[in-house]
Structures are given as structure tokens and as C-alpha cells.
């Protein structure tokens, strides 16, 4: 084995892919993945879905089994928090004062939850939902007939609501904005999700201003500014995440709403790459700088970063995509809808549970939210990747085959 040492900080989606891709790409030296969580990289999406609903065991969450890393000669250094990057000495410093030298460094530190400092936020039974430990703790408070209040009507909040309904709980979702999913979807899609959640027995309160969490040791209620009090055996707060950039910032790397990387996943230090939720990068398809929070981005950008470290420069240009599962709704999103000026619907949003919303800017198709319409998701993913253009009129007409709407 060569004397070079690639050290990956953070041990999740991006790290698992980066390590595997480094070996596939012919990296001869040592590889270490250093992360503060106790178990090897695992799939985060099931946390608010099947795992929370008790339909998946933690063993089934691992992205790859521990044996894979052994076989690939990738050292997993788990339960270790990295406290600093010393770029002059080229080493990382661990929480216990130890250090690990690197020749190349990859930052895959992901994102951390945005915290609310409401009165009562320190009460027992108040949770955020980002990692396995969070969900294991939450599961100690769930059960049929118990009441959950979820603060935040984004994907994670709504998935959590759906899973808790499956567990037979009374669920209320509080959203500060006028509609759920406001920052990420069109009004029609928000209205659809509100309808389905209500049909499934969830109470949704929009324009909600939470005043305080009440209780003496454990939380018992949530109080809104208008005086409403909602009983709560537990509260889950899901109000977004922030990129984990502290290490990069302290080390003097360029940071601007994420660790700034170029199309080869390089930071402002040529020996340091970064990938996943922690990065801010330029997307060539949409020609703008952005930060993504998705498995697709973590995985694909990690491949780019690994190639770069192996000396093979291949620009990152993958099409963003995402999914969310709630009840019997399978949402698949291809592309990014931000900046749309028109939405074309295929199928009914006010009844049933299957339709697609196509987002346009002028004549240009930007993205699709496909609900129980895998075919339309796949078609748009292909069209956006290969530069096909879409005919809005044909998209809106369900009698026209979806493929006929693209040329």
C-alpha cells in the first residue's frame, strides 16, 4: 500500500460513496473514514419513513455492511468527532486530542438541524430528527393513542406525521407559512398533501406561531400565539438544516452557505475536496450556485470528488432528483423547480392520489413532482438529462402518451 492517506471526515452517504469510489478509481494508499456517529454509514431517508414506523430494523439501514470496508481496506474510525483541520501540518485533530495525518482530505460533514430556542425547548420529549439516535429516542415516546405535535410542514415533518399515524398516534402538524411544503412545491401540490394528510387523520395548522412548549419535566402541550393549546406526549421539530461548515470555516476554506467547491468538488485548498449536504456548488444544468440536501447529490458529488483525488478530473453535472414516501404516496422529483413561473398539471389534484406537476420557466421545463407516476418521473429525468424539450399542452392532456410530449 502506498504512503498516501486519504482521510474522509463524516461517515454517511457521501463518505460511503467516496471511500468505495476511491478504491474503484485505483487509489493505492490508505483510506480512513472518521465520523462521530457510532455505526457505519447508513441510509438516512428511512429514518422518518419505515424505520420510524417500525417496519425496518437498524441492521437493514447500513449502506454497506462493515465487512465491505474491511475487504476494501477502508478504516472506519467511528464515534470520533473531528475538532480541527490543520492545513499546515496536514492532519485532522480528534476530540480526544489525537490526530490523523492526511495527504488528501475529503469533507463530508453534511448538515445539522436548525434549532428553535422556544421557551420549553429543553423539556423531555422534544426532539429533532436527523440521525438514528434521534429516532431511537423518539420511538421511546411513540405508541397508539399518544399525541405528537410536529413543528414544520416540510418533507421530513410530513413523513414523520405519516409514520406516526401508522403507529396509531394523534398527530398535529404546525406550519409557520400559509401552506405546507411552501418553499419547495407549487400551491396545488401543497393543497394535495394537506388534503391527503387530513384524510389520513392528521390535523394541519398553517400560519401557526408557536409560543412555547409546556410541561414541568416532560413536554405536555404546545401553546400557540393565538392561545390554542395542543396536547403533546412528544414534539418533533423539523424546520430545516444548516450545512456543517465549522471545520472548513475554522481552517480558512472558502465558505458561503456551504463549503464552496468547484465542478471537480475541490475546495479552495487543492488537497481538500468536499461533497454532499455541506457543499455549495455550481449546477451547470440550472446555471446557478446551490446547496442540495439529497442522497443523489451526496452520492454523485462523492464520485466526482473521488475521481478528483485519483487524478481524474470529471466535472459534476448530474441532474438533481429526490423522493419522499408518505402513506401510499410515492413522490419522485426530477430536476429543480425553483424559479418556475408556470405549473402544468397532469391528472387531478383535488381527488385521488396520482398526478404530476410539471414546472416551467417560460417554455423551458425545469422539474416534475410525480406522485404515484413513476413513468412520468422517469421520462422527465431522461428528458432533462438529455436536453429534450417538453410540450406543455400535451403534458396536460392525459390522452396523449407521455413520451409524445417530448421532442
Amino acid at each position, binding site marked *: 500500500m502506498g504512503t498516501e492517506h486519504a482521510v474522509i471526515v463524516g461517515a454517511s452517504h457521501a463518505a460511503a460513496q467516496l471511500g468505495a469510489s476511491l478504491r474503484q478509481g485505483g487509489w493505492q494508499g490508505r483510506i480512513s473514514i472518521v465520523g462521530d456517529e457510532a455505526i457505519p454509514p447508513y*441510509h438516512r*431517508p428511512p429514518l422518518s419513513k419505515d424505520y420510524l414506523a417500525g417496519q425496518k430494523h437498524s441492521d437493514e439501514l447500513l*449502506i*454497506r455492511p462493515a465487512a*465491505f470496508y474491511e475487504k476494501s481496506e477502508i478504516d472506519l474510525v467511528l464515534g470520533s468527532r473531528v475538532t480541527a483541520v490543520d492545513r499546515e501540518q496536514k492532519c485532522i485533530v480528534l476530540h480526544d486530542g489525537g490526530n490523523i495525518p492526511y495527504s488528501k482530505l475529503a469533507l463530508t460533514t453534511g448538515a445539522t438541524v436548525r434549532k428553535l430556542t422556544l421557551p420549553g425547548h429543553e423539556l423531555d420529549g422534544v426532539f429533532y430528527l436527523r440521525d438514528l439516535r434521534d429516532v431511537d429516542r423518539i420511538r421511546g415516546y411513540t405508541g397508539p393513542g399518544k399525541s405528537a405535535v410536529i413543528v414544520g410542514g416540510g418533507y421530513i415533518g410530513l413523513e414523520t406525521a405519516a409514520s406516526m399515524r401508522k403507529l396509531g398516534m394523534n398527530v398535529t402538524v404546525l406550519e409557520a407559512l400559509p401552506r405546507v411544503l411552501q418553499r419547495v412545491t407549487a400551491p396545488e401540490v401543497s393543497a394535495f398533501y394537506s388534503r391527503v394528510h387530513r384524510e389520513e387523520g392528521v390535523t394541519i395548522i398553517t400560519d401557526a406561531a408557536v409560543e412555547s412548549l409546556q410541561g414541568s419535566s416532560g413536554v405536555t402541550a404546545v401553546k400557540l400565539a393565538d392561545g390554542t393549546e395542543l396536547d403533546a406526549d412528544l414534539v418533533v421539530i423539523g424546520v430545516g438544516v444548516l450545512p456543517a461548515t465549522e471545520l472548513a470555516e475554522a481552517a480558512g476554506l472558502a465558505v458561503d452557505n456551504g463549503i464552496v467547491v468547484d465542478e471537480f468538488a475541490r475546495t479552495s485548498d487543492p488537497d481538500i475536496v468536499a461533497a454532499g449536504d455541506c457543499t455549495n456548488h455550481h449546477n451547470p444544468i440550472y446555471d446557478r450556485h446551490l446547496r442540495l440536501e439529497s*442522497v443523489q447529490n451526496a452520492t454523485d458529488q462523492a464520485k466526482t470528488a473521488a475521481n478528483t483525488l485519483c487524478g481524474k478530473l470529471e466535472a459534476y453535472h448530474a441532474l438533481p432528483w429526490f423522493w419522499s*414516501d408518505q402513506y401510499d404516496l410515492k413522490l419522485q422529483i426530477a430536476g429543480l423547480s425553483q424559479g418556475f413561473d408556470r405549473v402544468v398539471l397532469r391528472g387531478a389534484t383535488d381527488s385521488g392520489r396520482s398526478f404530476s406537476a410539471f414546472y416551467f420557466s417560460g417554455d423551458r421545463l425545469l422539474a416534475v413532482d410525480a406522485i404515484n407516476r413513476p413513468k412520468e418521473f422517469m*421520462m422527465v429525468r*431522461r428528458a432533462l438529462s438529455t436536453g429534450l424539450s417538453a410540450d406543455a399542452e400535451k403534458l396536460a392532456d392525459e390522452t396523449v402518451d407521455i413520451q409524445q410530449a417530448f421532442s
Partner: protein
Amino acid sequence: MPLVKFISHSGEENEVHVAPGTTVMHAAVDNGISGILADCGGACSCATCHCFVDEAWLAKVGEPDEVEAQMLDFVLDPQPNSRLSCQIKVSDELDGLVVLLPESQI
């Protein structure tokens, strides 16, 4: 434990033993067999775990459901024996299953 045989697009063969109930996707990913990406981890959402089931095993493996079938229409090089490997569970019945891998997932 049932055996699954993977044949890559270039003809390379790999045999792995997996516990009954494991998906064909996991059999590949857990054993470092390249050719299956499985970006969504088995949620039937990404279609990057496409494989071809050897003709001799088709009847035993069974048909894809509606969601899977719709996704399969749009994978690269779809064939009548195309399947998403995360949707096939290995069982004693499928001991010896032969799976061919496509040239590319995307």
C-alpha cells in the same frame, strides 16, 4: 444459504451466498459487485439497480409490480427480462439464481 450468480456486462462472473430474504440488490452492493448503484437504497424510487434475470429463472422470480414495471420502461436498454434488483428477494427457491448486469445504469 442461497447462492446468487452475477454476470457483468463484460462476462465477469461472481457468486455470492446471502441469507434468505436479502434482496438481489443488497446481495450485489454488500459484496462490492459493481454494476448496481442502488442510489435510493431499495425504495423503488431510483431505477439504478436494473438487472436482467436469466431466462431459466424468470418464471420463479415472477413479474414486476405496476410501479416497478413503469420504471423499467425507461431504464437504459429495457428487455422483457428486466427487473429492479431491489424488488427481488432471494429465497431457498431461488438458490442458484443467475442475474445479468447491464452495461450502465444511467
